[in-house]
């Protein structure tokens, strides 16, 4: 399925010109089909969704474009990539149109997905919903993928969210964790008509699956009600504190093990204690060096259990240098087991693919996000 990319003319203007864009996209499909506009057939346009990508700079915009183009087979979309530059003094909107086309199996025509890239400068960038609204295809669901941290400008964010059926962030890349995670939880609680998605939740999926599978297996099942401590190691970043992955994982682990967080106490940066009727459960989040992973990514999770009779067991799930496998180590009184499990690559494309498969809220995620909040003060 060889892909071709055709870029039509780009232009600048004081406002977005929806009708010019529609007509230019039509022409682009002619040209993509290799036909002159005076005759012949169009390339087939296909869209299952509107996908709006908010990129905070050009580099992220290009990255998003490549990533979305790679998903066109699974999620044919009208993609609108917005790069906002609100600090410029004058309003200006640069428009660029691209068609990502391929010859579909069984067809002798090209099938194209449209991409509209808008660089929005000045005051117009503070009113992005007004830029977007004319370009959305009415009958299709609208996904918004917000790249980067949450903005200070709630008006801007609210406007984007109001148009969305599913709003996708990546809390794993939040650099102001203490501010952004509570804000995200607040947004999720008030967005009745918009489901919240999080690439970070998808990133944690293999970890959640492995822990869930091992803890329901006969070896560890007897210990699951006696968790005493959990240690989550994550990759260090030189300047920023990227704590969202371990925090969200702490939230999920608390729910998974049915812990009461009402009296959770933060002892020191990275450490929190959740008193339970059966004794305290300690959470430790530790930064560590690990080559070739993105700062903030989980490196290992160690869960220690001890029963009232004093027998103990532990489960350790660790990242390996090979990104396609996790290492699982189980220690319990009858011996030790060490295995490996193959996982999905965990790349952004796969995570976005999964997020685009759903339009509805994931209650497990929302509960985990809510459970994360008491841990936020522990972020260093």
């Amino acid at each position, binding site marked *: 399925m060889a892909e071709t990319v055709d870029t039509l003319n780009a232009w600048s203007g*004081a*406002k*977005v*010109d*929806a*009708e010019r864009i*529609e007509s230019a996209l*039509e022409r682009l*499909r002619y040209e993509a089909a290799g036909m002159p*506009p*005076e*005759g012949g057939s*169009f390339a087939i*346009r296909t*869209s*299952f969704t509107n996908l709006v990508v908010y990129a905070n700079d050009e580099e992220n915009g290009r990255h998003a474009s490549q990533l979305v183009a790679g998903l066109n087979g699974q999620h044919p979309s009208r993609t609108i990539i917005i790069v906002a530059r609100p600090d410029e003094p004058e*309003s200006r*909107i640069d428009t660029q149109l691209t068609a990502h086309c391929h010859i579909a199996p069984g067809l002798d025509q090209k099938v194209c997905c449209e991409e509209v890239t808008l660089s*929005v400068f000045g*005051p*117009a*960038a503070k*009113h*992005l*919903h*007004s*830029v977007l*609204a*004319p370009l*959305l*295809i*009415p*009958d*299709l*669901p*609208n996904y918004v993928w917000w790249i980067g941290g949450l903005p200070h400008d709630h008006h801007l964010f609210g406007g984007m969210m109001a*148009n969305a059926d599913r709003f996708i962030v990546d809390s794993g890349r939040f650099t102001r964790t203490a501010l952004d995670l509570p804000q995200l939880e607040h947004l999720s609680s008030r967005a009745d008509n918009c489901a919240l998605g999080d690439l970070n939740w998808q990133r944690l999926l293999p970890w959640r699956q492995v822990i869930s599978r091992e803890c329901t297996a006969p070896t560890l099942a007897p210990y699951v009600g006696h968790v005493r401590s959990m240690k989550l190691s994550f990759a260090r970043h030189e300047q920023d504190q990227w704590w969202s992955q371990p925090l969200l994982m702490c939230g999920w682990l608390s729910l998974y093990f049915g812990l009461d967080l009402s009296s959770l106490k933060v002892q020191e940066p990275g450490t929190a204690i959740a008193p339970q009727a059966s004794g305290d459960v300690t959470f430790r989040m530790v930064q560590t060096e690990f080559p070739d992973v993105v700062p903030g990514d989980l490196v290992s999770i160690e869960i220690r259990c001890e029963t009232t009779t004093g027998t103990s067991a532990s489960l350790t799930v660790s990242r390996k240098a090979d990104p396609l496998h996790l290492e699982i180590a189980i220690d319990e009184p009858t011996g030790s087991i060490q295995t490996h499990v193959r996982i999905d690559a965990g790349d952004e494309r796969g995570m976005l693919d999964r997020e685009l*498969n*759903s*339009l*509805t809220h994931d209650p497990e995620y929302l509960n985990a996000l809510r459970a994360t909040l008491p841990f936020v003060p522990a972020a260093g």
Partner: protein
Amino acid sequence: MESQTLEQLIGSTDERAQDPCVLVIFGASGDLARRMLLPALYDLAYDRRLPARFAIVGFARSAWDDDEFRKVVKNSIKEFARRTIDEAVWESFSANLRYVTGTYGEPESHQRLSSSLEVLDAALGTGGNRLFYMAVPPDTAETIIAILQPHPQLGPDDAGPWTRLIVEKPFGRDLDSARELNRLIHSTFPEESVFRIDHYLGKETVQNILVFRFANGVFEPIWNRRYIDHIQITVAESLGVGKRGGYYDQSGALRDMVQNHIMQLLALVAMEPPIAFDGRAVRNEKVKVFNALRRMDPDEVASSTARGQYAAGWIGGEEVRSYAQDAGVEGSSTETYVAMRLFVDNWRWADVPFYVRTGKRLPKRTTEIAIQFRRAPHLLFRNIVDVSDMEPTVLTIRIQPNEGISMKFLTKVPGAPMRIRPAMMDFVYGAAFVNEAPSAYETLLLDALQGDATLFTRADEVEAAWEIMTGVLEGWKQMPSAGVPNYEAGTVGPAEADKLIESDGREWRRL
């Protein structure tokens, strides 16, 4: 000599009978003539659709002569016509352009016009056939129609030379004034000679509603209350009132858009199949729809309508002014947005709501009719997929822009596990037919020249539509003001409109 050249160069390609005639445009120096009528006539000439013996006479107050008028016409063609100037076509077209300066309603001025027409009759052999186009404000049109009364050549089409009258909207301000206008017109012109123009009906996509419904056997059996949940008709504009502020403030969205364009779209969607595609049969069926529309008492007006006026805001990344600033009126309560819930009380449509909305300064320009079908009666997949993901089937007829028809339906996502999501099947006019469609005015002017009134509104249609809208206007008078402005420019309208449809458990389509 001129007429021979005209025949050779502009000889008609239209297969219908083409009587020779003279078209008189009252208001020939105005915006409508310059932007729409004269370019449309040139485009018809270019495509050889005009009668072989044909002349245009402009009448207006501007003190021009024929040459000055030709210059104006040529410039308007350059700016607004679909076709480029072809010097040979232009030479023939302009050879029979005439202009008469005069005052509307003044006998001397109209006498000069008559003299000019007689000269053209003799030169071109038009046989006294006349088509009068009222491209003037309503008051002026009434003045002109009144003075046309003693014209000796008026008569029904089948009695010698014919005289036809094209009238632009608005056809009155309410039921009483519409009746009065019809009385005035009928005192001079029989109804068969009157062509009330609603340019929406000239649009290809509007005509295609009838073709889609009645030329395809598959849709009509499901076009009823059994299969259709509701219908939404949207006429959204991103523009404000512009230079029409003075007129608009006296009119408002209900009179400007709902009474005419939206009512016509509703009628075409809801009407029964006519027995033939002709003026009498089609218009008879439209009138039946208007007669079946449920009248509203003041309480129902309050619960079934919403109105609004735009405040300043942002559209397409551009800051725009409020209605009060645009129109230059402070404290006006004129509505720039209307939403309504209407019911057609007949066998086919009982209890199926028709939600209509129109507004200025909405996020984008779009006119569409969306037919939302009922959900499948038995949700076979409810245990496998989230039922809230199972959106209903929607058929959308896009009138403008991006003209076409699309169908949203559910489809299985390839692979396991079972996942269902909506997909869109899209027919785009511009993609399917490479020939550029004629403008609405081309279509309608040609129909009027040929005496085909199918796409024009009849007196009883106009009055029936006004009867409903006058009830709404009366209801609004008894209600407290909407508290305007109540929607920001660039948003989808006032919150009251959302409440109106949400109270029925439905929602407006995304614009």
